[in-house]
C-alpha cells in the first residue's frame, strides 16, 4: 500500500519569548504541541480553531517556512522536516500555498505574467518565452481570469481576482498539495462563493490535496472531507466531516459549532457559551488544556492529559468523558 501523501507525526513547535523587563529567563510559546495527522491524495483536510490555536503554524511547518522543534513531516514516505535548504528546494514544487491576504501576498511591482512565470522558471517547467506565455495563458484559463490579465499589475484587480492570481501561482508548478491558510477569509460573501467553487472544481479536475486552514466552520463544512479541531496547540478532535458536524465528540468542538451564528432568524439554538478567554500558550493549563473553560470538567481533567482515542472508524477525540459509562457521558 502506498503511503499517504502527507504525514505529520507528533509535530511540535515552540517559539522562544523573553519574559520580564530585561528579558530574563527564556520561556516558550508552545504554539504546536504534539500534532499528528495524515492526508491522502485528492483529499481535503481542514484545520479549524480560533486565533492562536496553532493552525497556521502547522501549515507553515508543513511548508517548511519554519523549522520544527520536534516531530516529523513526511511527504510521500520521505521525511522533509530535516532536509537541507538545497535538498528541500526541488520538493517545494509539490507543496504550494495560498495566503489569506491577496493584497500583501502578491508583489505590487510585478506584472501577473511575471508572478506566474516565476515558479515556472524556478522549477524549469517551461523553456523559452513562447512556452512560458502559453503556460501563463493556460493558468489564467484554469482560474477563470481573462488572458489579458497577464499584462496587468495586482492593484488593477479586485480582492477576489487577486486571490485567483494567488491560486494560479500556487498551481503553476503542478503541486500535489496546496496549503490554503485562511485563503477565503478576507473575501466578501459573493466573491468568497466564487473562490470556494473554483477551489472545489480544481480539486476535482487536478486531483489536488488541500490542507484547508480556516476559522469559518460553515465554509469548512462545505469544502472538506475531514476536519481536525485544534485548541491551544493540540488536536482535540479529528474526524470525517459528517461525524464532526453531526455528532461532535469533544466539548470544545461542540461549543465551537454552537457558537456559529446561523442565518435563519428564530432558529432554535442550544448555544454553549464558553466562559472566559483562551489561556496563554506560554503556560498552558495542566491536564486537559480545555478544562478551564469546559462545562463538563471533572477532577481527572485537571491533572491527566487526555489522549486522542478512536471512538468510531472515522472519529477520534481527546476527552476523558469517553472513559465514563454512557449514562455519565453527555457526549456519548
Amino acid at each position, binding site marked *: 500500500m502506498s503511503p499517504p501523501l502527507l504525514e505529520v507525526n507528533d509535530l511540535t513547535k515552540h517559539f522562544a519569548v523573553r519574559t520580564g523587563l530585561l528579558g530574563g529567563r527564556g520561556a516558550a510559546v508552545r504554539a504546536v504541541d504534539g500534532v499528528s495527522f495524515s492526508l491522502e491524495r485528492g483529499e481535503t483536510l481542514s484545520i479549524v480553531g*480560533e*486565533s492562536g490555536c496553532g493552525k497556521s503554524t502547522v501549515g507553515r511547518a508543513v511548508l517548511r517556512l519554519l523549522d520544527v522543534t520536534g516531530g516529523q513531516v513526511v511527504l510521500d514516505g520521505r521525511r522533509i522536516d530535516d532536509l537541507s535548504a538545497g535538498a528541500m528546494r526541488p520538493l517545494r514544487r509539490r507543496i504550494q500555498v495560498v495566503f489569506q491576504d491577496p493584497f500583501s501576498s502578491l508583489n505590487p511591482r510585478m506584472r501577473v505574467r511575471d508572478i506566474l512565470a516565476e515558479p515556472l522558471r524556478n522549477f524549469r517547467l517551461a523553456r523559452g518565452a513562447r512556452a512560458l506565455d502559453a503556460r501563463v495563458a493556460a493558468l489564467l484559463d484554469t482560474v477563470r481570469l481573462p488572458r489579458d490579465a497577464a499584462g496587468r499589475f495586482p492593484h488593477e484587480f*479586485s*480582492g*477576489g481576482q487577486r486571490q485567483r492570481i494567488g491560486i494560479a501561482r500556487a498551481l503553476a508548478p503542478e503541486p500535489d498539495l496546496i496549503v490554503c491558510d485562511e485563503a477565503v477569509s478576507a473575501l*466578501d*460573501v*459573493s*466573491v*468568497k*462563493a*466564487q473562490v*470556494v*467553487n473554483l477551489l*472545489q472544481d480544481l480539486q476535482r479536475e487536478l486531483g489536488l490535496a488541500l490542507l484547508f486552514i480556516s*476559522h469559518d*466552520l*460553515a*465554509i469548512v*463544512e*462545505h469544502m472538506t472531507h475531514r476536519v481536525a479541531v485544534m485548541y491551544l496547540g493540540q488536536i482535540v478532535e479529528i474526524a470525517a*466531516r*459528517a461525524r464532526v*458536524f*453531526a455528532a461532535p465528540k469533544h466539548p470544545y468542538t461542540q*461549543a*465551537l*459549532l*454552537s*457558537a*456559529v*451564528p*446561523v*442565518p*435563519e*432568524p*428564530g*432558529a432554535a439554538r442550544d*448555544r454553549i*457559551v*464558553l466562559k472566559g*478567554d*483562551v489561556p496563554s500558550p506560554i503556560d498552558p493549563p495542566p491536564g486537559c488544556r480545555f478544562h478551564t473553560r469546559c462545562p463538563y470538567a471533572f477532577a481527572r481533567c485537571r491533572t491527566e492529559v487526555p489522549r486522542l482515542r478512536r471512538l468510531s472508524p472515522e472519529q477520534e477525540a481527546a476527552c476523558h468523558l469517553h472513559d465514563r459509562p454512557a449514562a455519565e457521558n453527555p457526549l456519548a
Partner: protein
Amino acid sequence: MALLEVECLRTHFRTPDGVNRAVDGVSFSVEAGETLAIVGESGCGKSVTANSILRLIPAKVGRSTGVVRFEGRNLLELSPRAMRQIRGNAIGMIFQEPMTSLNPVLTVGRQIGESLRLHQGLDRRRAEARAVEMLTLVGIPEPQRRVRAYPHQLSGGMRQRVMIAMALACNPKLLIADEPTTALDVTIQAQILDLTRDLKHRVGAAIILITHDLGVVAEVASRVIVMYAGRKIEEAPVAELFRRPRHPYTQGLLGAVPRLGSSLDGTRGRLAEIPGLVPSLTTRIAGCVFAGRCPRATDLCRAIAPAMAAKAPGHGAACHHAPAEAAAA
C-alpha cells in the same frame, strides 16, 4: 415620531478619480428601542452611512447632504459644539477594531470616565466609580482592578467589552455598532452577542448594527436594510427578509452563504455565485446599480433606476422586477 430619521442622505468624497458617491440617497428610520441591521459587502456604503450620521467624515474629504433628524433636530446642521454634545452622549458608537479605537496610553477607567466627566459633569472619583459599574455591567471580572488596566493588558474580547461600556456609559438612546464582532473569534463573538442581547433588555437603547455577517443579522436584528453600491436596495423585517428576499442581490447574497449543517440535511450544493464585480462608485450609473450583475436585468433596468417600492407589508425593494404581494400593491 421615529428616534432617528435619515432622509436622502448623500455622502460624496472628492477623489483624484472624480466624485465617489459612497452613499447616494439613502433614507431610513430607527424607532426607539429597535435593532436595525445594515448589511452589505465591502464598499457598499454601510460604514460611511454610520459615520455620516455622527458627522465623523472630515469636511476636507467628503460632504454629506440630506437630513439626519435625531429627536427632531437635523444633525447635519448643528454647530460642531452642539454635535460634540451628542456624540458619546445621546448617541454612542462601537467600532470594529477595539485595539485601534482605544487609546493605548490611558487606562480603560479614564477612557470610560471621559464621556461621563464631559457630558454629565462627574468628578474624577465619581467617574471612576461609574466606570467600575459599567465594567461590571459588561461582565468584566474583577472590575475594581481592571479599571486601572491599559488596553494592551486585555484580550480582544475584553477590549470589545470595554468599548461597549464606553458607548453605554452616558445611557445613549441610540447605539451605532460598526462590525462589533467581526474581529473576534467565534466563541468570543457568541459571548458579545449574548451580552448585546442582554444589555438591550436592560438599557433599552435603539441599535444600528452594521455588519456583513448574515448570521449575526439573523440573531440580533429586528429589521434589516440591504445596501449595494451606496444605495438601499431592500428593507424588511428580519424573518421576512430571510424567508422571502425580493431583490435579486439579496437573493444572491443569501444563496452564496454556506449554512452550518448543510452536509447533514442534504442541502449542500454548489454555492450560488453573483457574477461580476461591484461597479465603480466614481462613475454615475443611470439605471439600477445592480443591473450589470443581475440575471433579470432588462433595458428598463439599465435606463431607469428603480425606486424603493412596497412589495409586502413593511417590505420594500428597489427592483423593477421584484414580485409584489397583491395586498401591498
